[in-house]
């Protein structure tokens, strides 16, 4: 306790860089490796862009991010939007699944989050929004 951080950002893609910079700054407190820092930044980038692109359909809306250490070296990151929500969460998390009818989205967002973080939980209700909770244990130098 006492180290929690709550941030509210406008859910537009222009803020994607800021969202992952905030995540990097927070996680840096635990002295992670460069690789872990990149993994956290990438996962947060994916979750935030999901909120902006799918949750809010590029029209903007509030994205809340919460950061906490559940132990000295384990970080929990929650990214929440009040957008359209996900009808079928299991299907949305399938690798290569995309609702994009063009040819420019990969459908790999959740797969990247799952690979780079230790645990991921998605809560969503159509019309109410989506919350993505991710947990990662960091291999900190002082933790060895």
């Amino acid at each position, binding site marked *: 306790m006492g180290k929690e951080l709550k941030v509210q950002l406008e859910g537009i*893609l*222009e803020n*994607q*860089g800021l969202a*992952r910079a905030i995540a990097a700054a927070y996680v840096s407190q635990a002295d992670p490796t460069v*690789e872990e820092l*990149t*993994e956290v*930044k*990438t996962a947060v*980038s*994916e979750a935030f*862009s999901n909120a*902006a*692109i799918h949750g809010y359909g590029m029209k903007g809306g509030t994205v809340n991010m919460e950061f906490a250490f559940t132990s000295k070296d384990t970080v929990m990151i929650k990214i929440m939007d009040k957008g359209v929500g996900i009808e079928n969460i299991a299907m949305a998390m399938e*690798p*290569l699944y995309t609702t994009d009818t063009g*040819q*420019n*989205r*990969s459908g*790999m*967002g959740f*797969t*990247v989050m799952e*690979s780079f973080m230790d645990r991921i939980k998605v809560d969503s209700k159509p019309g109410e929004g989506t919350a993505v909770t991710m947990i990662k244990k960091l291999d900190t130098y002082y933790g060895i």
Partner: protein
Amino acid sequence: MEIIFNVMGNTLIAELLGELDHHAADSVRQRIDSALDNYRAQNLVFDFNKVTFMDSSGIGMILGRYRKMGEKDNNMAIVGCSKPIRNILNMAGVFSIIDYYNTAEEAVEVFDRKEVS
């Protein structure tokens, strides 16, 4: 994100600099597509040496160009990825359809050899 374009023979080399995310991807796509048209390039090399960050938007950007170029008889290659970027591209199996080389020169050499034979 900045892009420096270089032409070697029939090959367009797109050197990407900075962070590639969903915000940057749209304009990267447009600039590469118009460069491909302008130079009438047959082959395309993505140089990732100076990319400091990439999320899954990079997969869509690369595969989108691959589909576009695949309509003709063209070659494509990716060079100079850091380990995290290679991890992400591997997740989507990008390297099973697009060759990876260490340098752009190496990729161009392979393309040239293909054309001769």
